Every structure is written in structure tokens, then in C-alpha cells.
């Protein structure tokens, strides 16, 4: 029995990471109807930036967040302002194809710079510390921390969206870009800020990913897919719904892995397809994809 509790617990904890993958994705789609195919590769890019930061500056991975987060946010702003803004419009092919091209560029750029070798960030003692929740149930301190950070990130995003002028600007521009302009909001700037925020979240997710497991330039697309699945399982339009979707995905994968290690990812896909078949609007909303 504790066996299964551990499995589900692990699933929930990794689900927090998936929720972070998903949050950035869902934010962008909410504000400007853009799905960034390079999203997963940007997570990996953040991981490599953290790698460089820790190696050249001799700082710990968590400290590297102080560099990687602002850097990724700046990259996000520039990316949106100078490239992606030009793809927005009625036609969905341009943003899809440009972000697809971006994905290829990032993957191969990282491959050229860092080779395909597995890398990992070392968080030292933090990685092996465990916490005992109840009798027989132990949880790694790092996964717990990562889960807490995920909750904090989602809560922070909720706060920004619903209690700040910036969030109002995001929601208004998403409702009607034209009328938002009448309020003095420059859409190009608002969209770029949204992407900056998204990549800031991506940066946090990337650093935790790098600490948690081996990474190499090719693992981006899988992260995109996990984030995407979490968004669909949870349902569009709700950040906490996305968070819950991440947890469901994490648990589905954990159960699959427990039955047969080769089935881990497949189990996640199947959970996604089942939700898509039975309740396409997601588990936690009333909207439609």
C-alpha cells in the first residue's frame, strides 16, 4: 500500500514540474493565441544557460536562477518583439512554422555548442536529502522544493493576471487587441511582456529540470508535449486547472512506470488521449479547445 502511495506522491511531485512547463505555454495561448512549438526547446536552453552560469561563475544551480530568469525573460521579450509579433494574425501557419523552425535552430545550435552528451546540474546535498512525511513515506527534499516552487509560480501568475495593471493589460489585449490600443496599450509591447513572463517561468522550470535529471539538446519536444498534455487535461483558461492537469499527468506517468518502466511516457499519452476522447474541454473547466 505504501508502495502505491509513494508512486502517487512521486507522480504528484513531478506533476508540479509539468505544471510549470504548461503554465508558460498556457499564458501565451491565453494572451495571444500563439502556441510556441519551441517551448520545450527553450526550457532546455534555460538548462544549458544554467549550466554555463554554474560552470563559469562557480555558483550553485539555485543561485543561477538569478541570472537565468532575467536572461530568459529578456530573450523572450526580444523574440516576441522582433520575430513572433510579425507572425500573429488570422492565419495559424506562420506562427506555427516559425516556432517550428525556431525549435530546429535551438536544438541544433545547442547540439553544435554542447554536443549530445548528457548533462546534469549538481545541487549538492539538496539532491539526496529526504523528508519523512508519515511512517514509511519518504519524499526527496528537492522534489518537494520543486513542487512548492511550482505552486508559488502558479500563485504568482494568478496574482499578476488578476490583481495587477499588467495582468489587466494582458486580459484586455487578449479580449480585443484593437480596443486595448485605444486605452493606450501598445500591443507589440504587451505581447512581448507576456512572452518575457512565459520565458521567466520556462527558466525556472528549466533549472529544476536540469537539477532533477540528465538533459541533452534533444529532449525539448517531449517537454513541450508534457506541457501541452497538462494544459489539455486540465482545461484551457485556468491556471490552477493547468496545475491540476500537470498533477494528473505526473500521476498517470508514475503509475505507468510502476507497472512497466517502458510504459511511463506512453501511459501519460494514453491518459491524455482518454481525456481528449471523453472530456475534450478538460477536467477542470467549462471551455472548449
Amino acid at each position, binding site marked *: 500500500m505504501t508502495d502505491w502511495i509513494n508512486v502517487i506522491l512521486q507522480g504528484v511531485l513531478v506533476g508540479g514540474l509539468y505544471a510549470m512547463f504548461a503554465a508558460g505555454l498556457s499564458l501565451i*495561448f491565453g494572451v495571444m*493565441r*500563439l*502556441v510556441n*512549438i519551441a517551448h520545450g526547446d527553450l526550457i532546455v536552453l534555460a538548462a544549458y544557460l544554467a549550466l554555463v552560469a554554474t560552470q563559469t561563475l562557480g555558483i550553485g544551480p539555485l543561485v543561477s536562477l538569478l541570472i537565468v530568469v532575467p536572461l530568459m525573460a529578456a530573450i523572450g521579450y526580444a523574440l516576441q518583439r522582433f*520575430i513572433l509579433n*510579425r*507572425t500573429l494574425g488570422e*492565419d*495559424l*501557419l*506562420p*506562427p*506555427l*512554422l*516559425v516556432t*517550428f*523552425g*525556431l*525549435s*530546429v*535552430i535551438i*536544438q*541544433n*545550435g545547442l*547540439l*553544435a555548442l554542447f554536443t549530445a552528451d548528457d548533462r546534469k546540474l549538481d545541487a549538492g546535498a539538496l539532491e539526496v536529502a529526504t523528508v519523512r512525511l508519515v511512517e514509511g513515506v519518504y519524499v526527496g527534499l528537492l522534489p518537494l522544493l520543486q513542487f512548492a516552487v511550482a505552486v508559488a509560480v502558479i500563485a504568482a501568475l494568478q496574482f499578476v493576471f488578476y490583481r495587477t495593471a499588467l495582468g489587466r493589460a494582458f486580459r484586455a489585449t487578449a479580449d480585443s487587441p484593437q480596443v486595448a490600443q485605444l486605452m493606450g496599450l501598445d500591443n507589440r509591447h504587451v505581447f512581448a511582456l507576456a512572452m518575457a513572463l512565459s520565458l521567466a517561468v520556462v527558466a525556472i522550470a528549466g533549472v529544476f529540470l536540469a537539477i532533477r535529471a540528465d538533459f541533452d539538446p534533444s529532449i525539448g*519536444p517531449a517537454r*513541450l*508535449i508534457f506541457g*501541452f*498534455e497538462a494544459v*489539455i487535461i486540465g482545461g484551457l483558461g485556468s491556471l490552477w486547472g493547468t496545475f491540476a492537469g500537470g498533477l494528473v499527468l505526473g500521476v498517470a506517468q508514475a503509475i505507468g512506470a510502476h507497472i512497466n518502466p*517502458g*510504459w511511463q*511516457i*506512453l501511459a501519460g*499519452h*494514453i491518459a*491524455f*488521449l482518454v481525456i*481528449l*476522447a471523453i472530456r*475534450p474541454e478538460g477536467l477542470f473547466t467549462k471551455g472548449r*479547445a
Partner: protein
Amino acid sequence: MSVRVTFASRSSRIGLALCAIGFVALAAAPAWGGRDDLQLLAQIYSYVALASLWNLLAGYAGLVSVGQQAYVGLGAYLLFAFGIFGGVPLLAAIPLAGLIAAAVAVPIAALVFRLRGHYFAIGTWIVAEVFRLTASQVSVLGGGSGTSLPASLIIAIAPSRQLRDFIEYWVALALVVAVLLLIVLLLRSRYGLALKAIRDSELAATCNGVDVIRTKILVYIVTAGATAMIGAFIFLQRLRISPDAAFSVNDWTAFVIFITVIGGIGRIEGPIVGTIVFFALRQTLADLGTVYLLMLGAVAIAIMLAAPKGIWGVVVARLGWQIFPLERRVIAESSPSHSTAVKA
């Protein structure tokens, strides 16, 4: 005054004539080409076919799929399965694989059509991943490392290697011609008119009685079946299959998308032009490895931002050419000698 609809135009007549000449030359390739030439040409044909089918789906039906590799791999695995376990001659297994894949596409369509736009795209990718992961679990076909075609099946195609090469080459040529013919006929039919209407405005099309969903599903299923046949052929020629190769996003989707974007989406000539450019680049730059892919990505982005209609799109805009007669022209005839034409 009477009205008739015609497809031909002066440039299309010239273009078709050139195509006919080209076709004869290519059909005779075994006479003038070596083994490497034939294999390269067969690869080119396969990519033209795959890109044309992707173009039909995305450029005409508006269904942007990033998961067509699902059907390439499915077709390939079905061929291997039928050949190795079903005792079906390999060449006959190609159309069979296409039919089965089309049937599989029906429930898949029921699933992925619940998503729209960008989400549809990623949904198709996930389906392909499910196929890939499932294939890795099928141990009788080699599981994760894959398997090879037994020599007996290959020899059954033809006794000599040279004759096999010729036959495989003609099969490749026949497949791409069949695919292009299929697309042209589809677009000239009322389904084609429906697709054009849907592309211009789905809402208006629905109001005019076009069954949008049914048309899209039809195109999706037909494309899936045809893509599977191409996939079956590709791996027949390769003699070996593995899940990563059969369901590779890079080979069967990224390259296909780049070809179509560079050549021009939504026009039949586009994928052909794109494939030629793609292979020209590949022959000259392939040694650069990852840098080559990087450049491909950059070129695709640049084209999408600067010339979204691709190379052929620019040609059409500047010169108004079309090779395949597809634009409907309504000609009003007030007397036998007097007619004015309006293009649609």
C-alpha cells in the same frame, strides 16, 4: 449567352507539355542513370509525394499536422508485418498498407478533430509518439531496435538486383504520379471547390451548404492512406525498419514542412519546387551536419516572414504561371466567336 468552366490556361498548357516530356525522360531513367541516380530520384519522388500530401492537408484543407510521421511509420510497419507474417508479396503490400492506414485514420480523426488550430497540430504529434512508443513494444518486429526484411521476400520482387532496382524505381515514380494525379483530380472535383471555399472562409462555406467537417475528414483519411503507401515504399527500399527511423519527426515532418514552406504552400507546384531546392541544398551542404539543419530552420523562418507564399508563390504573383490546370476560369460566350474569361 452561355457560360462554361474551364481549367486550362496558356501557361498550364505549356507546363503540362513540359511535364509530359519530363515524365518520359524520367521513366527512361534506368537507361541513362546509375544505381545511385535511381535511388536519389526515388528519394526525391518520395519527398515530392509526402510534401504534396502535407500541402493538401495544410494548404488546402487548413489542417496543419505535425504528426504525419505516424502514417509513414504505420505504413512501413504494416508492410513489414504483411510481408514477414502474412506472406504477402512486398509490392502488393504497399496498397494494402495504405488501405489499412486509411482505416486506422478514422478513429484517429475522431480524436484529433476535437482539437483545433495549433492544438490540433500538437495532438497529431502526440498520436505519432504513441505509435512510435507502441511500435517499440512490439517485439515480433524487433521492438526498440527494429528488424530487417528477409532476403526471400526481396528476391521475390525480381531475381536480379538490377531488375529490382529498376522495378523499385518505377514503383516510386508510379507512386508520386499517382499521388499528384489524386490531388489534381480531388481539387478539380466538387470536393476541391469545397476546399477552396473552406480555405477562403469556413463560415461562408458552411452557409453555402459545404459540409466542412466531412470534407476535412475525407482529406485527412485519404492523405493518411497515401502517406502510408509512401512510407511503406521508403522502408521497402531501405530494407530495414526501427521505431525511431519510421516515426522520425525530423525526416518525415520537419523536412516535409520546410520543403512545402520554401516551395510554396497551397499550390501544387510548390512542393515540387521545394523538393528540388531542398535536395540541391542537401547535396551541396549535407557535410555540415547540424549547421545544415540550423540553416534550414533559419531559411524556413526567413521565408515565412518575408515571402509566406514560398518561391512558387512569388512566381505566381509576378508571372501568373501555373503548370497544373487548377484555376477555374468562367468563360461567358455571347456568340461562338466572342468570349470573355473571368478567373476564379
